[in-house]
C-alpha cells in the first residue's frame, strides 16, 4: 500500500477558469466581508464573555438561562450593544471588584447595573479588558499547541481519516460508542446535536441525556467526550479527533467552547444556517467570520457544508453549485485567517444510483474538487438521500463512495451507514461501516496514484462541464451580489430573504466607538483582513 496521496493532474482542467472563479469569489465576498466587519451579534458578544471566563446558568429547569445570555441582554437593554459588551462588562468588574464570574452572576441577577465607563475611566477599563482578552486569546492558541504536542506524543492517525457520528442523545451512551468506534478504526468522532439546538439562541449547560437524534453541544459534553477520546487515543497510540457543529444561532459561542475544549474540527459553513435552518443571512455572515477567526487560532479544521445542497437539489444538475460555494467558502475562510490546510471543503456522493454512469459521474465530480483545491483537507460525505431501507444495497453504495474517495485522495471520509435511510446509527452499523471502508481503502488506495482518464473522455468532459457551469454561476452571483443570489434560490434550491429568517434582531450595527479587544487580538493573530 502506498502512503496517502492527493492525486492531482489526473484530469486536464481549465486552470484559467479556476483562477477566474477565485477572482469572482473575492469580488462576491467583498460585501459579506464588510458586513461582517461592521456588525456584531448577541452571540458574538456572548462568545467574548465566555472567552474571558463567564459561564454558568441562572435559574432552574425551563427558566434556566446561561449567564452570558443574561449579561448580554442586560447590557443590550441598559447600554446598547453598538459598542460591544466587553467595556461595559469590565466596567462592572472594575466597579464591583469581585472578579469576572461573580460580576457576571451579579449582573445576571440584576444585582448590579451596567454602564459605559466615563471617558476618563475608559482607558483603564480597556486596559483591563485587553489584559483578559490577551489571556483568553492565548488560551485558544494554547489549545492548538496542546493538540500538536499530544499528537506528537500519542501518535498521528494515517490519512485518510475515517469520520463517524454518534447520535444517541445521551452523552453517557455516546461515550462508550465513540470509544468503541475509535477502537475499530475511527479517527474522528462527531457528536451530532439534538434536533432544534441550532435554533436555540443560547447554549445549554452541563452534561445532557435528553437530545433527540443527537446530543446537545454543551461545554461539559465537549469536555467529557474530549477526555474519553484522549483516553482511548492513548490506548490506541493514535490521536482521536473530536468535532462538532459551529453553526446555528450560537455559532460564535460554540466556536469558542470548541476552541477551549480542544475540539479538532468544526462544521462551519458560510451559508448552511441560512439555507437549512432559515437563520437570517446577516446574522450568519457576521457570526461565521468571528467563529472562523477563533478556529484559525485554535488550529481547528473547518468543514463546510456544501454536501447538504445535494439533499434538496439534484446532485447532477446542481453539481456546479457545490463547486461555486467552495470558492466562496474558501475565500471567506481565508479572509478570516484560516490557512489552506484548515479549510476542509465538504462535498458528497449524492447522485441517484439509478442514474446511468453514476459512479463515473461521482468520480468526475470528486476528482474535479481535488484538482481545484489541491491543498484542502477535503471532507467527502457519503450517500444519504438515496439510502433506502435496503440495507444491503445501501452497504454497497457506501462501498462505492469509499472507493471514489480512495481513488480521488479525499482526506476525510465520513463513513456512510447502511441504515442511513432508517435510524441514527446503531453500534453495529458503525462497526460494519468501518469494516467496509477498511477493506476498500486497503484494497484500492494504491490506485489513487495509478489511474488516468482518457483524454477528452466522459470523465474529463463531465468535469469540464461542471467547472464551466460553476464559473457561469459565479459570474451571475457577482452580478446580483451574494445576498441577491441567495434571495434568488441559487443554492440548494432554497430561497431566503435578506431580512427574513431567525435571529436578525440579534444583529447590531457596530457604532463608531465599538471596542472589542478580543476581536482585535484575534484578527491580528490570525492575520484576518480587518
Amino acid at each position, binding site marked *: 500500500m502506498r502512503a496517502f496521496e492527493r492525486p492531482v493532474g489526473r484530469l486536464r482542467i481549465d486552470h484559467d477558469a479556476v483562477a477566474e472563479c477565485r477572482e469572482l469569489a473575492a469580488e462576491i465576498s467583498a460585501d459579506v466581508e464588510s458586513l461582517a466587519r461592521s456588525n456584531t451579534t448577541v452571540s458574538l458578544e456572548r462568545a467574548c464573555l465566555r472567552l474571558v471566563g463567564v459561564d454558568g446558568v441562572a435559574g432552574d429547569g425551563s427558566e434556566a438561562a446561561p449567564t452570558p445570555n443574561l449579561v448580554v441582554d442586560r447590557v443590550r437593554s441598559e447600554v446598547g450593544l453598538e459598542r460591544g459588551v466587553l467595556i461595559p462588562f469590565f466596567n462592572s468588574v472594575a466597579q464591583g471588584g469581585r472578579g469576572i464570574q461573580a460580576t457576571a452572576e451579579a449582573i445576571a441577577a440584576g444585582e448590579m447595573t451596567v454602564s459605559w465607563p466615563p471617558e476618563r475611566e475608559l482607558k483603564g477599563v480597556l486596559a483591563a479588558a485587553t489584559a483578559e482578552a490577551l489571556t483568553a486569546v492565548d488560551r485558544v492558541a494554547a489549545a492548538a499547541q496542546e493538540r500538536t504536542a499530544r499528537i506528537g506524543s500519542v501518535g498521528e492517525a494515517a490519512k485518510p481519516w475515517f469520520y463517524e457520528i454518534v447520535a444517541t442523545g445521551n452523552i453517557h451512551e455516546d461515550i462508550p460508542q465513540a470509544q468503541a468506534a475509535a477502537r475499530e478504526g475511527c479517527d474522528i468522532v462527531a457528536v451530532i446535536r439534538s434536533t*432544534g439546538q441550532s435554533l436555540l439562541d443560547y447554549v445549554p449547560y452541563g452534561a445532557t441525556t435528553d437530545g433527540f437524534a443527537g446530543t446537545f453541544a454543551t461545554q461539559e459534553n465537549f469536555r467529557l467526550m474530549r477526555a474519553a477520546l484522549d483516553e482511548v487515543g492513548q490506548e490506541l497510540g493514535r490521536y482521536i479527533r473530536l468535532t462538532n457543529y459551529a453553526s446555528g444561532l450560537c455559532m460564535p459561542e460554540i466556536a469558542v467552547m470548541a476552541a477551549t475544549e480542544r475540539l479538532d474540527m468544526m462544521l462551519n459553513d458560510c451559508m448552511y444556517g441560512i439555507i437549512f435552518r432559515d437563520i437570517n443571512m446577516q446574522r450568519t455572515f457576521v457570526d461565521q467570520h468571528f467563529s472562523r477567526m477563533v478556529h484559525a487560532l485554535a488550529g481547528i479544521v473547518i468543514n463546510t457544508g456544501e454536501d447538504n445542497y445535494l439533499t434538496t437539489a439534484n446532485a447532477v444538475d446542481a453539481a456546479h453549485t457545490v463547486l461555486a460555494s467552495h470558492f466562496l467558502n474558501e475565500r471567506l475562510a481565508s479572509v478570516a485567517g484560516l490557512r489552506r490546510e484548515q479549510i476542509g471543503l465538504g462535498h458528497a456522493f449524492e447522485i441517484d444510483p439509478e442514474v446511468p454512469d453514476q459512479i463515473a459521474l461521482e468520480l468526475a465530480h470528486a476528482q474535479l474538487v481535488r484538482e481545484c483545491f489541491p491543498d484542502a483537507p477535503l471532507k467527502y460525505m457519503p450517500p444519504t438521500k438515496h439510502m433506502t431501507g435496503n440495507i444491503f444495497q445501501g452497504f454497497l453504495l457506501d462501498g462505492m463512495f469509499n472507493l471514489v474517495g480512495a481513488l480521488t485522495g479525499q482526506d476525510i471520509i465520513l463513513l456512510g451507514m447502511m441504515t442511513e435511510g432508517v435510524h441514527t446509527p446503531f*453500534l453495529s452499523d458503525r*462497526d460494519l461501516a468501518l469494516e467496509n471502508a477498511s477493506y476498500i481503502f486497503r484494497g484500492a488506495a494504491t490506485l489513487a496514484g495509478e489511474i488516468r482518464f482518457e483524454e477528452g473522455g466522459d470523465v474529463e468532459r463531465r468535469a469540464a462541464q461542471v467547472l464551466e457551469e460553476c464559473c457561469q454561476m459565479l459570474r451571475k452571483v457577482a452580478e446580483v451580489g451574494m445576498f441577491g443570489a441567495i434571495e434568488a434560490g441559487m443554492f440548494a434550491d432554497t430561497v431566503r430573504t435578506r431580512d427574513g429568517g431567525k435571529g436578525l434582531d440579534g444583529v447590531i450595527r457596530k457604532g463608531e466607538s465599538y471596542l472589542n479587544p478580543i476581536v482585535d487580538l484575534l484578527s491580528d493573530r490570525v492575520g484576518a483582513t480587518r
Partner: protein
Amino acid sequence: MEVKPYGDARNDGLVQLSFTLPVPESERARQAALELARKMGFQRCQVVHMKAMGPDFTFFVMYGSTSHSIDPDLVTVTEREFPLLTVPEINRVIRESLKRRLVVVGACTGTDAHTVGLDAILSMKGFAGDKGLEYLQEMQVVNMGAQVDPGDIVEVVRREQADAVLISQVVTQRDAHIVHLTQVREALQTAGERERLILVGGGPRFSPEQAAELGYDRIFGRGTKPSEVASFLAHRIAGPVPA
C-alpha cells in the same frame, strides 16, 4: 392458507437476523444468541457470523427457521379507503362541495427540519412524477416550513381558515414523531379547531394504521404520492365519489 418465509423451498421458514448483545465475544455469547433466537421461535438456528464490537459487545448474523406462520388472507389491512382521482376530478369535487378553494396548511413541527418530504407533497414540483398540491387550482396551500411550533400552527389555521392541516415528521428517535404529532393534535383540540379540520400526518416511518391511536384522520407513510393525499382530501370533503 398459512405460509412461512421462503428461503429456497416452500415453507422452509428461513429468516436472516442480525443484532448485538452486550456480552463479550465468546462461546458463551454465541450460545446466548442461539438461545435468544430459540426464544423467538427459531429452529435449526445458526450463528453464521460473530464479531466483537469492542470488549463488551458482540455482533451476530444468524439464520434460523421460524416456527411461526401467518395467513395473509386473515391479516387486517388498511387498504386505501378512497379512490385515486385525477387533477380535474379533484378540482371539480372541491368546487362542487365547497364552492370555494380548499385551504391547506402544512408544517414540519417540533424540532424537525426535514422539509423535503412535506415539500414533495405540497410544492409545485411534487414527487415521483406527480405535481404537488400547490398545482391544484382549487387548493390554496400555506407551507409553513420547518420546526414550526404547534402554537404557530393554530394561529395560521385560524387566520387562514384552514380546511386541512398536514403535519410531517421524519425524525423518530426516542419516538419524537409520535410526541410531536400528538402535540399538534392537542393544540388544535385546545383551540377548539380539531373537529372541523381534516388532520393528516405523514413521514417515512409511519404506518396508516397508526391514525387511530394518534387521533389523526389519516396517516401517510414512505413513498406517498401527492395525488394520494389530494384524493384523500377530496374524498373527505365530498364523501366517496363514483368512479
